[in-house]
């Protein structure tokens, strides 16, 4: 984000406690030091907003329509629910309703999914809600390199982008190839581990769960291919289908509530388009269909882990 701001004056960031406080997950740390002024009541490039998700999402949308490139942080994506009318009914619709004469180059980003015992109101996986809406793009990178490169693409994109981060990913360390002009491609999934017996398909933190599950399964001689979807809308069905047609089995893994989560959409499409290549029904692993409980043992039960994935894989063989 800092690089984007350096390259383009029209890029700004707004959200709650992102400036002086450096962000609740420290994602925006160091930006205030560069673009904010401690003495000022407000700093338009790194703007600490009041707690008004709908209001500032709408203001950012209007600013984008007038040609700025705002990045809006939701402290957690659960709070974006307050802004759903703005995002779905306004931001996502303006290009179509105007038949292309008004663009909205905006990025909505923030941590979504469960963290540690944040309980029912703070643990939503919202990416499926947004990936449901024509007019939005939705990406969910799983690696530091993808987070870096795809953020640059998101800011450069002239369409509204929902950039979904799972808080469990913030502590992952990895190297990036720093290049101010790099762009991480949207609509392109990647194979993070090759295999031949089954395709494990997931995104965001679940990609790492899938990689861990693959390690466990390897010990039993099951060779699993891990597909990291990383772009939900647009969705790279080509890569997903190529993997399934090779392995003949698929399990889709997602943290969101099992019933109706975005992984269900992926599973449905695999069933429709890869039927001739499937040796088993498409399996799914989703979060339990419950509001997230507070007690750590209950919470852990709700979130899919590598043992849940291993169990789902065994069910298919």
């Amino acid at each position, binding site marked *: 984000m800092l690089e984007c701001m350096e390259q383009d004056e029209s890029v*700004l960031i707004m959200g709650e406690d992102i400036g002086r406080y450096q962000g609740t997950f420290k994602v925006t740390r160091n930006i205030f030091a560069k673009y904010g002024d401690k003495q000022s*009541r*407000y700093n*338009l490039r790194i*703007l600490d*907003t*009041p707690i*008004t998700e*709908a*209001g*500032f*999402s*709408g*203001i*950012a*949308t*209007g*600013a*984008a*329509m*007038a*040609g*700025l490139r705002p990045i809006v942080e939701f402290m957690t994506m659960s709070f974006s629910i307050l802004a759903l*009318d*703005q995002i779905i*009914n*306004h931001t996502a619709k*303006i*290009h*179509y*309703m*105007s*038949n*292309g*004469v*008004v*663009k909205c180059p905006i990025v909505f980003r923030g941590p979504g999914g469960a963290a540690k015992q944040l309980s029912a109101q703070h643990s939503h996986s919202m990416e499926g809600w947004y990936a449901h809406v*024509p*007019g939005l*793009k939705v990406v969910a990178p799983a690696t530091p390199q993808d987070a870096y490169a795809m953020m640059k693409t998101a800011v450069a994109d*002239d*369409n509204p982008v929902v950039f979904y981060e799972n808080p469990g990913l913030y502590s992952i360390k990895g190297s990036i190839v720093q290049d101010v002009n790099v762009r991480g491609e949207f*609509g392109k999934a990647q194979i993070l581990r090759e295999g031949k017996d089954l395709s494990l398909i997931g995104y965001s933190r679940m990609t790492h769960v899938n990689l861990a599950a693959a390690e466990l399964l390897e010990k039993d001689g099951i060779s699993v291919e891990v597909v990291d979807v990383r772009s939900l*809308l*647009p*969705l790279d069905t080509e890569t997903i289908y190529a993997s399934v047609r090779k392995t003949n089995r698929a399990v889709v893994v997602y943290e969101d509530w099992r019933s109706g989560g975005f992984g269900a959409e992926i599973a449905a499409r695999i069933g429709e388009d890869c039927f001739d290549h499937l040796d088993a029904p498409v399996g799914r692993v989703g979060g339990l269909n419950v509001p997230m409980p507070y007690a750590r043992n209950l919470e852990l039960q709700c979130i899919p882990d590598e043992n849940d994935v291993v169990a789902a894989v065994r069910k298919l063989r």
Partner: protein
Amino acid sequence: MDSRPLAVGFQGKRVAKQAETQITHTPAELEQYFREMLFIRRFEEKANVAYRQGKMGGYMHTYIGMEALCVGWMHAIRKGHDNVITAYRDHAHAIQLGTDPVKVMAECMGRKTGTAGGKGGSMHIFDPEKGFYGGWGIVGGHIPIGAGLAFASRYRGDDKVTLNFMGDGAANQGVVFETLNMASLYDLPCIFIVENNEFAMGTRLEYHASDTELWKRGLPFKIESKRIDGMDVLEMEQAAKEIVDWVRENQRPYWVEVMCYRFSGHGAADQDRQLYRTKEEEEINMQRDPISRLRKMMIERNMMTDEVAEAIDAEITEEVEKIYAEADAAPFPDVDEVYDNIYTDMSPEQGH
């Protein structure tokens, strides 16, 4: 509990006293205002006819009775430079800013030659080249977007102002208060204009606002706030000019409640206005007709005659007929256009 309809109109009593309007305009200028208001009137009347004939569908809201408000404000801004945004009662704003009325009519009819190629309809007229950013269907939902246009001006340090129109019903929406707070916090050059026609669809002002003096809502946010009568185009223009100039110079927001009245229903589907108001109160308020008022004033001051007024009316009526015919002759969009312009650079998943 008294069940009679409450006192009608805000004539005189509830509106802050306006100074006697100086007529500094020439007869030619006044005739122009007359023409502009009458054009909107005849256009909107024709739109209602078109709706009843099945040429327009969905929701279609006309500006009949409120013409002075729009014409007054648009004469106070730098057209094409400043930004204007409103809700769904938007034909008049677009036309005043210079959008081709044939394209507006065609859009309402869902034709390919409409402002949005038939993709938006009556509620979603956009013309950013003229500074017109729509055209929005969620009551109060566009208010932060209007403030966002002003935010961009603040950010760039340019001297544009944004006119951010809403109705009295919209003034209750939560996001409006969120926006007022930020507009004041960040010194946004945004003029919030409440077109108070005393009804939120079928619910009158006294039944939807705990305090009917909507102008006060800017005060808790330290925003300059005022109430004005919007049924006299010259008073409207003068008040609007003062506010626009003040905002442009001071780079601060403004919240203004403009009293007006709509003579037609809320929208084309509102065919039984007696469900929520009486014929008597309508007749009283129709005496506030801004077009009759201007015509009467010009005739009294020998700036126009009845014959000239009639001739202008006939001319405008014929022009609107031509517009209607041209719009009606246009084709509908091609069916494959359904996927166009959702994104700037791609299509969604296609097919059922």
